[in-house]
């Protein structure tokens, strides 16, 4: 099977056609194309069926999509019955979504961002930002390469390959780090912004923060932090206009 590197590159755009019907489906079909090329000469009928399957509904975290892509491509070459491959794709959506989201969106990303925010405030500047981009993308690229390789090696046994891999352990490890760095950043950021305004200004901003935490928690998703901010600014402008 050739085209692994092209498939890996195309995985960077796996969400390029994200939509509410097939979600990542078409992007997966686009990434699968180089992997399925050899099948065209071996079994053209099977190749056509494989292309159709590759672009059907699919959703997971984009950084772990290589596992599903590799596993289904290998299954196509091993002539596994089509319905079985479709079931594998469906079965992989939830675990790859949950693991990937916990590892990247709820773990690695806030961990690194908490660190870069703290470092920026402490004078890290461009070095902090460059360090964040390098660290995140090295981790992401390494995960992408591992995902595709593991999927291609495991085929239909990809489920057990995932559960015995480093991913669940990394999720457990990165979550406390994210908690720590974000916690660390909060007082540093508050001081960075508020020291220019003196005690009265700082107390005012902290009162807005406390109100914001309380009311966004109370009203839930209907009052997001963005809506709260815009509402608070509109209120301030109204009070100033009224001469208060």
């Amino acid at each position: 099977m050739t085209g692994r590197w092209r498939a890996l590159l195309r995985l960077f755009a796996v969400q390029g056609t994200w939509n509410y019907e097939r979600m990542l489906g078409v992007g997966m079909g686009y990434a699968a194309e180089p992997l399925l090329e050899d099948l065209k000469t071996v079994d053209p009928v099977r190749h056509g069926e494989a292309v159709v399957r590759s672009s059907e509904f699919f959703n997971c975290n984009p950084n772990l999509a290589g596992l599903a892509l590799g596993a289904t491509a290998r299954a196509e070459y091993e002539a596994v019955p089509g319905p079985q491959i479709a079931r594998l794709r469906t079965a992989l959506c939830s675990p790859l979504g949950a693991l990937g989201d916990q590892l990247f969106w709820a773990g690695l990303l806030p961990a690194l961002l908490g660190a870069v925010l703290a470092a920026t405030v402490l004078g890290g500047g461009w070095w902090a930002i460059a360090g964040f981009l390098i660290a995140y993308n090295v981790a992401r690229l390494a995960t992408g390469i591992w995902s595709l390789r593991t999927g291609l090696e495991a085929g239909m046994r990809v489920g057990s390959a995932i559960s015995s891999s480093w991913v669940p352990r990394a999720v457990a490890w990165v979550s406390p780090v994210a908690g720590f760095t974000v916690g660390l950043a909060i007082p540093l950021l508050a001081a960075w912004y508020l020291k220019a305004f003196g005690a009265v200004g700082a107390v005012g901003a902290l009162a807005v923060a406390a109100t914001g935490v309380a009311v966004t928690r109370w009203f839930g998703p209907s009052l997001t932090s963005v809506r709260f901010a815009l509402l608070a600014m509109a209120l301030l402008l109204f009070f100033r206009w009224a001469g208060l």
Partner: protein
Amino acid sequence: MSELPLYATLLLIVWGTAVALDLVSVPQVMIARPVVAGAVAGLLTGDVEAGLRVGVLFELFALDVLPIGAVRYPDYGPATVAATALASGAPWELGLGISAALGLLLAALGGWSLMMVRRSNARAIQRHAAALAAGESRAIRRLQYGGLLRDAARGAALTVLGLVLAWSIAQFVHFDRRTAVGLTLVAIGSALAAIIGGAVRSAGRGTRLKWMVAGLVVGILLVVLR
């Protein structure tokens, strides 16, 4: 807002488009994160301090949201670029509030436009349903490139709109010092509320919460000792 030469304006539009694409479509290397988008936009406008102040502020809002599955979230990339353009050249204590207001509106609009692009992608897929059912790779490629183009157009339009609004605000909206400072303080307070709310929600009641509290304590100690 500083007077921007034409090349800087064009570079800001290119940068705004790139960060909008990076949010979801391609390549997700995290240049869309406000802290990165703001710092580079600050470099392009000649005021890195403004870029960092705006970028870090929006990062606090962005950390409140987990971009999971089909969840709707604001697009802070082009919003950060436009807000940085507005904030540049003025003391940040006075310019951050109104820039944040512009940026938050644009971010919300960006989130809505992302939804429109996703619906447009779905319509394009429906138009190519027969070709997809026949296993035509060419149809998949066409859909993919079309999706990327739509998202790029969305990012460019948002950035241009943001820069036009920034220019208009700089020309026609003038606040007294107390109002400008008040807006900045409200923006900072709201951003702190966003990151604290998000952090507490993510932490739950397990190990992460303990580590978050430990981080808070170390952070407070650093503030006191500095």
